[in-house]
């Protein structure tokens, strides 16, 4: 009873309801595109709210070059951005190998698809490892800082404007709190937060003793540098407003500046890293499918193409994260 369906006579036209897909794309690929469009909105939500906070704190945002200046095996060398640039290259290159795998798939070259997919997985894993290392440096911190009662972060510099670590400033006092080990105590519980390496009293004492130590506040001058207070102002700030020692970063405080700086760093790069790890897992699954010849039997490597779309999207997001977190 084919007459049950009314014919419109427009079936041959693109959008006429005929058997041909108007967008000339398979269901799976179309849905991947729709998913990526919605996912891009999630990321833009994150990045736009980061922008909002950035505008709110535009006078006092941390300088990215000072925060992200580590490079593996170059201990203590100031290497702003080189490492993130390297991570960007790794991700872009893994995108290249992915698109080469897709291209080899179109030509039904199983061997090439296998090789390129393998390289893509390796690239993804290196990127994830790099991000973990970046997080480690960020969480541990380098210099440490003092938090004021108003919740601001102040840092120590010498008269040349070079940063000083808390360890360089502080002088040990007797009778301070010590970490007890489980073996030394009958009853043992963890502090809510770790005790800083140096107490505020020790930092204050060291600061007062050395005339050459100045305080740097978060406010940016019109040259985009942090304002360094005079010795007198530094003393009055430390005397009257210092509230605690901050080392490294967590969700409630960080030594770099406003707490939201670390929060956005963790959430945005974390969410991106989560996407990368999902991508690596998908890549591994299709890698084994390629190996056992699933797509060879199916006669099409379109699955590689779909996962490839996702992988390129991850790269695309990183390009934006790189710009807004490290450059702008």
């Amino acid at each position, binding site marked *: 009873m084919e007459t049950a369906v009314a014919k419109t006579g427009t079936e041959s036209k693109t959008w006429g309801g005929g058997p041909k897909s108007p967008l000339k794309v398979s269901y799976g690929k179309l849905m991947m595109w729709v998913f990526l469009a919605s996912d891009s*909105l999630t990321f833009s939500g994150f990045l736009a709210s980061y922008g909002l906070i950035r505008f709110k704190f535009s*006078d006092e945002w941390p300088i990215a070059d000072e925060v992200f200046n580590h490079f593996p095996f170059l201990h203590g060398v100031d290497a702003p951005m080189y490492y993130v640039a390297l991570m960007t290259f790794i991700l872009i290159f893994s995108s290249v190998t992915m698109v080469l795998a897709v291209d080899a798939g179109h030509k039904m070259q199983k061997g090439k698809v296998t090789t390129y997919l393998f390289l893509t997985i390796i690239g993804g894993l290196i990127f994830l490892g790099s991000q973990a290392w970046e997080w480690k440096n960020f969480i541990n911190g380098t210099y440490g800082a003092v938090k004021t009662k108003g919740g601001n972060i102040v840092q120590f510099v010498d008269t040349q404007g070079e940063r000083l670590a808390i360890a360089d400033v502080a002088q040990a006092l007797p009778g301070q709190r010590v970490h007890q080990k489980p073996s030394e105590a009958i009853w043992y519980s963890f502090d809510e937060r770790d005790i800083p390496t140096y107490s505020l009293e020790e930092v204050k004492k060291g600061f007062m003793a050395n005339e050459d130590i100045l305080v740097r506040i978060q406010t940016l001058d019109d040259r985009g540098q942090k304002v360094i207070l005079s010795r007198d102002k530094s003393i009055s700030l430390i005397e009257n407003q210092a509230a605690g020692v901050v080392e490294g970063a967590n969700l409630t405080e960080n030594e770099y500046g406003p707490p939201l700086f670390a929060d956005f760093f963790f959430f945005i790069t974390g969410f991106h890293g989560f996407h990368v790890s999902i991508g690596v897992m998908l890549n591994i699954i299709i890698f084994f499918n390629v190996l056992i010849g699933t797509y060879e039997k199916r006669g099409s490597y379109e699955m590689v193409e779909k996962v490839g779309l996702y992988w390129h999207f991850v790269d695309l997001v990183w390009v934006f994260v790189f710009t807004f977190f490290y450059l702008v």
Partner: protein
Amino acid sequence: MAETNTHTKNDNSAVKRIWTVFVILSIVTIVEVVLGIFRPDFLVHTDFVYLSLLNWIFILLTIYKAYYIVWAFMHMEHETKGLRRAIIWTSGFLIIYLVFIFLTEGNYIYEVMKNGFVAWDF
């Protein structure tokens, strides 16, 4: 899906295109990093619509890179016009609007914190 794979006909040109795009993306990234490290004074201190010229350069270069990733790596250039517009125009419109209202609001909060009569650092 043979009908979508229009670029399989000329085999080596596809691979060549991939490497060309890789070179473009690398050069743009290197330019960004160099600008990010040296931060030329006149670019940092020339403002244009709320942002410094340097930041505009970064944003434009990023969009340029995004264009190549989507068009060449994700094969958007081989898709139909309908699919291109459904994805790019929709998300493009929403993202631009979102960024616009968020940044406007952020700037407003900044003004209030700076010029308002309520002390927030105490």
